[in-house]
């Protein structure tokens, strides 16, 4: 793997400048702690609840994504393949899609309280629409020649779905999931800010109330790293599944 030395040098430069500004006395170090203090807060967190917080956030993220993506896939494919369903249901879905997912949080708390169901529902709501829209478009844009070839070779419907339609929409599904993951991260954070007792978002809320800026920055870095690594591993799966060059 080629090492990007320019990016590494720039990253190190930012860290050094950050530390210099923080400890120069020009800013309040309590509000703008340097990398040394942030690292120390991070180690403190690591020796107490970091693993638990990351695990619970990841669990909520995964559960929400699985639920949202599954329902989004089913709804998107059905509406993309059945014109009656698209004409009937898609306008309502488009209206709901334009709502900011965060705006649903107060209503979700009224419905489900502040338990796990509420958080998973909120994340699933955010993850649903990108996959739904991607598959609605994808299912309709399968070249007719593909299904005609299956038809002329007298392939049964199930085999046509398995060997032709599903692979043809796979790039759309994967692109939808990638966007869903990004939104799901946002929704995990939001849902943990409101009425949680664990998770990375909860830890950030606590750090904010207690003016613990070094822990807050450490938590931001952890959240960023989680999102970056999720995207990295997802893209590896993406390239393995959609390996045929053209998408």
């Amino acid at each position, binding site marked *: 793997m080629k090492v990007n030395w320019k990016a590494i040098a720039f990253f190190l430069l930012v860290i050094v400048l950050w530390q210099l500004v923080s400890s120069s006395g020009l800013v309040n170090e309590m509000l703008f702690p340097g990398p040394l203090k942030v690292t120390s807060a991070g180690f403190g967190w690591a020796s107490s609840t970091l693993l638990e917080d990351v695990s619970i956030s990841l669990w909520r993220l995964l559960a929400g994504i699985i639920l949202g993506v599954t329902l989004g896939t089913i709804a998107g494919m059905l509406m993309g393949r059945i014109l009656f369903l698209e004409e009937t249901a898609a306008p309502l879905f488009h209206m709901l899609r334009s709502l900011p997912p965060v705006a649903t949080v107060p209503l979700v708390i009224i419905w489900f309280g502040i338990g796990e169901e509420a958080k998973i529902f909120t994340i699933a709501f955010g993850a649903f629409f990108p996959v739904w829209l991607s598959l609605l478009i994808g299912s309709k844009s399968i*070249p007719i*020649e*593909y299904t*005609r*070839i299956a*038809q*002329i*070779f007298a392939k049964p419907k199930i085999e046509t779905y398995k*060997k*032709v339609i599903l*692979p*043809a929409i*796979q790039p759309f599904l994967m692109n939808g999931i990638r966007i869903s993951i990004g939104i799901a991260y946002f929704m995990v954070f939001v849902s943990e800010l409101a009425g949680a007792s664990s998770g990375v978002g909860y830890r950030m809320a606590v750090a904010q109330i207690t003016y613990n800026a070094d822990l807050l920055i450490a938590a931001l870095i952890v959240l960023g790293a989680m999102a970056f690594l999720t995207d990295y591993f997802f893209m590896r799966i993406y390239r393995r599944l*959609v*390996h*045929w*060059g*053209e998408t």
Partner: protein
Amino acid sequence: MTRKHVAVKGLNVDFEKPVLKNVFLDMKKGEFVSIVGRSGTGKSTFLNSLAGFMETEGEIHGPGRKAIVSQNYSLFPWMSVEENIAFGLEKQDRERVGKIIRRIELEGKEKSYPYQLSGGQQQRVAIGRAIAYKPELLLLDEPFANLDSYTRITMQEWLNEVMRENKTTTLLVTHDVDEAILLGDRVLVLKDKSFRHEYNVPFNRPRDNEIRYLPIFQELRREILKSL
């Protein structure tokens, strides 16, 4: 009298307004018929009607086992060469794949994906997949339209050889009059919603590309072009 292998009687196809009107066609078993016509005259619609892809009026009698090769999206991009060729086959017929790959001269490319092949190679795979299926009627919808002229000529020669071996009843739609004559036993001109002219091609098989420089070829070409 030779029994008709394909018989089309009074075929009508409408897309809001008529595209094909009262079309008749008879084909003998093993015959290669080329259809030419200007753009938008309904050549591909006729082929798709025979394939069973369209709602039509009139009678179409023909074999049930058909295969089609079109100019676009002929191959599934997520399948390798051998998977594409095996797509139409039952499990017990998969041994045919190796033989077909040799016939389409793509040994060593079995595991390649369509995007790793040239345009000519891709169309050879598409034709290979159709032939592997052993269709009783092969429908070719401008299969070489997207190829450069050199590859196109090479492919025409190659297809002539393949068709000589297989003797499959074949219907070719093309806008290239040279291709229609070179490959066909008969050339039909589709104009004003039905076949208006018919020309018998006076060349025995096997044919090679050199026949296109013969005066008789040029004369036939001129006549067909005039009738378009």
